[in-house]
């Protein structure tokens, strides 16, 4: 019968209309963010050995770091800046870090009102409170909810 295809389709639509809703009511309902999520970056500045591996791994020259030397000839960090504007969020820097002190966070709402806020100064603002991601971690960390 001509039109039976349309009716069949409408029957499905009707069935779906009465089935469970799947729309997520963002922002009241928060989405589940995976443990390996690549969000913003976070740095444990005391563990960093200033080896420049992250800087060299980055395809876009996003990371700038400056370091000084203390009396034992040990390097310490004086500046660590991520120009997030040009970051591809590719993760090559996190994978390259031998000390695993550079990490992704599981944040995802990264829009800012002002351009200057896009730059991440990880030295002065280490963002250690953000939920971190287990991306590129050799020993899987304890999973957080």
């Amino acid at each position, binding site marked *: 019968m001509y*039109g039976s*295809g349309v009716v069949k389709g409408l029957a499905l639509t009707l069935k779906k209309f009465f089935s469970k809703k799947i729309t997520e009511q963002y922002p009241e309902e928060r989405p589940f963010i995976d*443990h390996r999520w690549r969000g913003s970056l976070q740095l444990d500045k005391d563990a960093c050995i200033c080896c420049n591996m992250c800087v060299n791994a980055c395809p876009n020259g996003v990371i700038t770091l400056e370091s000084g030397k203390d009396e034992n000839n040990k390097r310490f960090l004086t500046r660590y800046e991520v120009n997030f504007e040009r970051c591809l969020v590719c*993760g090559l820097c996190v994978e390259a870090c031998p000390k695993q002190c550079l990490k992704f966070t599981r944040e995802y709402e990264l829009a800012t009102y002002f351009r200057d806020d896009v730059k991440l100064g990880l030295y002065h603002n280490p963002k250690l409170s953000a939920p971190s991601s287990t991306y590129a971690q050799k020993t899987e960390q304890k999973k957080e909810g």
Partner: protein
Amino acid sequence: MRTQEITVNLGPQHPSTHGVFRLVIHLDGEVATGGTSVLGYLHRGLEKLAESRTYPQFIPYTDRLDYLASMSNNLAYVQTVEKLMGIEVPERAEYLRVIFAELQRIASHMVGVGTFVMDLGAVTAVFYPFIHREKILDLFSMTCGGRLTYNYMRIGGLSHDIPEEFLPKLQEFLDYMRTALEEYHQLVTGNEIFLARTKGVGVITKEMAMSYGLSGPNVRASGVCYDVRKAHPYGIYDRFNFNVPVFESGDTFDRYMVRMIEMEESVKIIRQAIKDLPEGPVLGKVPKLIKPPAGEVYHSIENPKGELGFYIVSDGSPKPYRLHIRRPSFVNLGVLEEIIKGWKVADVIAILASLDIVLGEVDG
């Protein structure tokens, strides 16, 4: 009745052009008498950028080609470099690559058919495939932490192994896919309005398809059985048992059907790959500094949109001397100007959507 010919700009900012594509279309009344495609709005010069990046650093840029199929783009590029350097890839990585490439094919076709049906005016029908695709994106993001730009493949293997909850979820998804596809056939394929709008519209003949160098579902809908997975098996595709759907008439309906059936075949391939998935490392032995020997290489794979090929010239340094990308969407788009002649504006939109182009790839 003769009317005055008018020229209309379709795009570049128009939702039905699937990105920033402009079609200057000449109309006689409502009927298109010809058209010129204007490209380049999304051109970022990726080929040139590659010359100033090291080989591994270019992998995230390939994500930005066909951004609905980043995983497959990654695969094509890393396999090209592996071919140039003669790197062995561990078995487990090979199997996982097949699983991910096929999942990506399903995800890309979901968007392809969904937006195609939406461009015919059926907005409900775009949400169903997007729901299914969302499940694939969940699988991807749990593995590599990204939903669109995965940057998952590495020269010599993969960046990560799959998490333990991945395989059960994947099984669940494959079982779900059967009902999902059945439902979609029920919703769309038998619909008389859909059939009236697509059968016989925008026909690409076999000769035309071959002379324009089309590839992927577009060429298989025109009766040419060409699939790189069968014609020049790469990776471990020769170990799998699957069919390549070929249709004869080359109209928009056939292009839709090829995609629908390919999704079923992809599910088959993934099932076989899970069955044989070995244990072991996912990254092979690769030198710290990737420095291919001087020489050139071309390698192509079957992307969801068609044959994606990379041509690399190496001068022995850590950066490519020259890199060229054979981008299937770009080549497939060439035929558009010819096949829209004589169709109404609404059909032109449908024909464009049935070619399933992505502007990130067209413009490079």
